[in-house]
């Protein structure tokens, strides 16, 4: 029974990963790829881990599997955030169909404010 369940879970996880990989190739811009895909893979790996834990049926393996999932859950969103932010700040273009961009507005406003501040000299950069 556990074998069947674990097999199903593993296959589901693997499919997530495969779909994520296909998506990585197909999706139109970097931001869509990162927001849609890397998470799919995390999800997929989490499934695989559960499958593995089930299959071994041992607490130590379960703990390890759990550890992997925990780490991935903590780290992959943070990594995605930090890379996405760096990409945006570095000027990686958005897909042409990206319609609303409230971040860009915010940045423009911020820049304006800073320029006003900078009219007093000697307070640039860090």
């Amino acid at each position, binding site marked *: 029974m556990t074998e069947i369940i674990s097999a199903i879970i593993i296959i589901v996880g693997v*499919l*997530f990963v495969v*779909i*994520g990989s*296909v*998506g990585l190739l*197909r*999706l*139109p*811009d970097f*931001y*869509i790829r*990162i*927001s*849609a*895909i890397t*998470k*799919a893979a*995390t*999800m997929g790996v989490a499934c695989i881990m559960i499958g593995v834990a089930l299959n071994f049926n041992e*607490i*130590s393996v379960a*703990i390890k599997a759990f*550890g992997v999932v*925990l780490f991935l*859950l*903590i780290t*992959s*969103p*943070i990594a*995605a*955030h930090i890379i*996405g*932010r760096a990409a*945006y700040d570095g000027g990686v273009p*958005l*897909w042409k*169909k*990206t*319609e*609303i*961009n*409230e*971040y*860009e507005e*915010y940045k423009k406003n*911020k820049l304006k404010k800073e320029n006003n501040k900078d009219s007093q000299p000697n307070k640039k950069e860090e």
Partner: protein
Amino acid sequence: MKLLIPHIILSIILAVLFFNVAPYEGSANRYILAGIVIFSLTWPLSYFFSKDYFRKLPGLMGLIVFFTKELIVANFRVAYDVVTPITYMRPCIVALPLDAKTDFEITVLACMISLTPGTLSLNLSDDKSLLFVHAITFKKMDPEAIKRDLKEGFEKKLLKITR
């Protein structure tokens, strides 16, 4: 002490659980493993449960269930969209006004948003009042709906247990 056992009661519970569940022969490894597990779990969790943890436990469970559900649903949706033509996809970047105040709350929220396929926490405003989220919608563009979903879903449930 706080450094080693961030949360005493939780730790004891976990220890008891562990030693009952783990059928381990190796003497040293068992203790080490127990220590690791206990620490690894209580350390992050101690941020959630500053106090009143019995009251908050159901909330936590609820959050986990909700989050898992969202995760799976969103994953399937993305999976579907990946294998079908992508022309209907409409991405946008929205500014999510935050009620979450502490760094921990913001981080957990941002992570959960990022973990859900289709949304990504891109950045935080300098005063930590806005979270910029890159989101993918389909067919119809409605930024307010996205914000509402996020606030009602993740943030509300999160704040319930952290406060």
